[in-house]
């Protein structure tokens, strides 16, 4: 069947099974192949907090020809590898959507336990004998998941060739017989799928840009973060494992030693940040990564970083809180801790990327900023961003500067070096151990320009100002988008202000709202501290109503923005451990648009 090249593609596939079914692996092959085929792909996996057991796994991938910004709350296709887990997800399949399931259950099933009896009338059932096919071609049931992927590919007319490449790469290093057996499972599934009778909307449309195929890389937010670190020339990493940040350290552990950079798993998060500051003091580009509980432990050290004006980068991937909370669920509730969780007036820089490409940018730029502004920089991710896959184009040329340090210009032996010299921009020339004639001691005590402890009233006042004012220049740091407005220009009925991973859903909702004729625009704020107040004020000036949707209970960003601008906003909050839904945001936009009109009519 010929591919309809004119058709736009926007299809979301969910594969659901239990931990042992190879659900995540199946999803991985699908998303890698489709990205390789030139589609835009956004994917996100959900898995249980326990190491094992029969917890539910879902791999979701949205495959599109145009740029999109988030997963959809409805999927076009659900593949069930375990009906008991998949049944609750049948309602998430859209009208005329497809449900693919195992047609040969191992034993007879109790009534109602088979998924086919749970479909809505407009959903299309495709029963397939995954197990049987797997057993037939590989003499084992273990490749059921691959058969399912093959079936899917066949059903949707996906390019089998590219799947072969992806499977080949995934199994490279494994015995050839294994790879061959997996490939034959795929082919058997593909053939079955291709031969199945289907309606036209089951076919996949064109990819975005056949020509650019090779530039699109399928990558998770954490992987992009790692790439950013490597491209920025990270020298040392000290970390302690914690979900969902662990994979950053794990990937760096493989890559850094290849470049002579050094990584150490420390005894806890306090040591991780302490060593990071120590390394930064000694001149290294140094980073750590953690989640909310770890950041809480780092709070005291972060304050030292601010006071002693030391560079350090901390990647903080948020999960459900408070406390140990929900380690494998997403949330945006560590904003308060990141922005305010420090003793004293200890402001530092906070960056929060909104998508996978942003993770790369923010990671690299964080090292530049830490070095330039001589302060800890927190890059605030969340589980939904860390583990989300997107097809991204990484820049061909390394976009990060090698050295952003303000150099010491000193006639040797002439004047005594002052580590904390007062300058017009608050940034003092920085020397590091080994530099001739620049000996000094850094301290968490208040200190004078030489770094000597000093608690005179004038000193504290002027040094507090220095430490804060230098940060204000960071909102103009070159080569990074600190904030950006999308959608309608000029006056709008509703403006949506967003941050972090939720901004994808915000953009989608804004686009929908505009389609409905609502004057609407959205602004993403990437630097959360110091806030880019100029652009935010300008944006708010243009908006009839401002909506701030975020994944936390306390409306943390809303309160932050209002506290800084003195302007009230509408809050939209959700704490379910799952991403915000586009339709929730849209409903709120509609409500506010109506409200503005009413006010205007009064």
């Amino acid at each position: 069947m010929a591919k309809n090249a004119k058709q736009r593609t926007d299809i979301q596939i969910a594969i659901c099974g239990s931990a042992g079914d190879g659900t995540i692996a199946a999803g991985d092959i699908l998303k890698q192949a489709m990205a390789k085929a030139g589609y835009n792909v956004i994917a996100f996996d959900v898995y249980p907090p326990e190491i094992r057991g029969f917890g539910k796994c879902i791999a979701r991938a949205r495959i599109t020809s145009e740029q999109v910004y988030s997963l959809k709350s409805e999927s076009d296709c659900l593949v069930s590898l375990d009906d008991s887990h998949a049944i609750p997800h049948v309602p998430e399949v859209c009208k005329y959507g497809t449900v693919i399931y195992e047609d040969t259950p191992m034993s007879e099933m109790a009534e109602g336990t088979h998924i086919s009896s749970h479909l809505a009338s407009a959903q299309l059932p495709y029963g397939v004998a995954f197990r049987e096919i797997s057993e037939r071609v590989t003499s084992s049931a273990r490749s059921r998941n691959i058969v399912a992927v093959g079936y899917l590919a066949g059903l949707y007319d996906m390019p089998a060739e590219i799947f072969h490449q992806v499977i080949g790469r995934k199994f490279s290093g494994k015995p050839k017989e294994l790879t061959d057996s997996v490939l034959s499972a795929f082919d058997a599934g593909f053939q079955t799928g291709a031969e199945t009778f289907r309606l036209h909307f089951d076919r996949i449309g064109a990819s975005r840009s056949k020509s650019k195929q090779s530039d699109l890389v399928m990558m998770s937010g954490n992987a992009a973060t790692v790439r950013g670190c490597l491209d920025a020339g990270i020298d040392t990493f000290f970390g302690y494992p914690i979900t969902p940040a662990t994979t950053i350290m794990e990937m760096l552990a493989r890559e850094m030693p290849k470049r002579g950079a050094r990584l150490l798993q420390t005894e806890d998060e306090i040591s991780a940040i302490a060593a990071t500051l120590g390394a930064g003091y000694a001149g290294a580009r140094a980073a750590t990564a953690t989640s909310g509980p770890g950041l809480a432990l780092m709070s005291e050290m972060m304050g030292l970083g601010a006071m002693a004006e030391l560079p350090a980068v901390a990647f903080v991937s948020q999960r459900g809180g408070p406390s140990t909370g929900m380690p494998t669920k997403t949330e945006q509730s560590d904003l308060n801790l990141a922005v305010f969780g420090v003793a004293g007036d200890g402001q530092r820089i906070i960056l929060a990327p909104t998508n996978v490409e942003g993770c790369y940018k923010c990671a690299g730029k964080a090292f530049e900023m830490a070095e330039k502004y001589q302060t800890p920089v927190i890059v605030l991710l969340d589980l939904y961003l860390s583990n989300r896959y997107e097809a991204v184009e990484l820049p061909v040329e390394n976009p990060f500067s090698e050295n952003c340090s303000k150099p010491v210009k000193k006639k040797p032996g002439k004047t005594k070096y002052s580590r904390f010299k007062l300058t017009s921009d608050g940034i003092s020339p920085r020397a590091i151990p080994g530099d001739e004639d620049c000996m000094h001691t850094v301290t968490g005590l208040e200190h004078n320009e030489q770094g000597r402890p000093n608690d005179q009233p004038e000193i504290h006042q002027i040094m507090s100002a220095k430490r804060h004012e230098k940060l204000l220049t960071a909102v103009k740091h070159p080569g990074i988008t600190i904030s950006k407005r999308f959608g309608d220009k000029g006056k709008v009925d509703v403006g949506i202000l967003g941050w972090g991973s939720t901004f994808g859903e915000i953009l989608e909702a804004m686009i929908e709202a505009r389609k409905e004729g609502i004057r609407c625009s959205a602004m993403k704020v990437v630097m959360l501290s110091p806030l880019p107040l100029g652009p935010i004020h300008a944006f708010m000036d243009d908006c009839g109503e401002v909506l701030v949707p975020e994944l936390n209970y306390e409306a943390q960003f809303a309160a932050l923005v209002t506290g800084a601008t003195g302007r009230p906003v509408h809050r939209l909050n959700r704490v379910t451990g799952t991403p915000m839904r586009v339709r929730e945001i849209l409903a709120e936009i509609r409500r506010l648009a109506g409200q503005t009109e009413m006010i205007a009519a009064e």
Partner: protein
Amino acid sequence: MMNIHQPVYLEDKLEEVESSGKLAYRSQTLPTWCPGCGYFSIVEGVSKAMTDLGLNQKDTVCVSGIGCASRFPFFMNTFGFHSLHGRALPVATGIKVANDDLTVIVVGGDGDAFAIGGAHIPHAARRNIDITYILFDNGVYGLTKGQTSPTSIVGFKTTTTPYLNVDQPLNPLMMLLSYGASWVAQAYAGEPHHLTEMIEAAVAHRGFSYLHVLSPCVTFDKTSMTYKNLGMTVRPLPGDHDTSDFAAAMAAAQNTDLPQLGVYFAKERPTLADGLNEIAARAEATV
């Protein structure tokens, strides 16, 4: 080994010092310690050791936590990092991992090390990070004005133990030995020449060296670890003590009533940097 029960002040010895070149290692700031505090001997000892070893100030970093002891870096004319209470070792780890070429000397008090900083010592020791850790043990919290510490003896009266301390003190030497420290020694602030010797040996050791210095707090301890009491009890390790014998070191460390001065244990083994280089070599081999 001499038996001097009073510390030596820099001021007393100004002439001697000026001609020795040691002053290069001392900052312009005079120690803010109480007159008579044992810590003066240590700063003096480190300056002397640095001269003798010919260390370059610009390649030396003194790292500390918080406490009277931890004020030390301000009094040295080297690079310095006065960090947070209990965190000197992880900060030093970062410095050393970032730059192998630096000589890193870590100092701290008994509370800094064994109370709030207790989680870090085992790891610095087992990893054999090539730094020198000089522990200023006065058996009390000096800077916060006299509370009990992990090395305070039973029966010690402090502001937080007005009805006398009931907790058995820790035994730092035994602990460090059990952690796998590759060099462990003890000195006494009242015996500055031996102290200086020990500092030199500690800095010279390749790997993690731990030097425990008994040092009276003349302000908040009038009864326990005083010059008088220590002067009467400290003695050198027996001449035939074998520094390669772990069991002998442990046995000697158990004798806390009569603290013995000298090197308890010394063993060369790969440092953390060696390990990290090994990792890099293995990684390159896979590229």
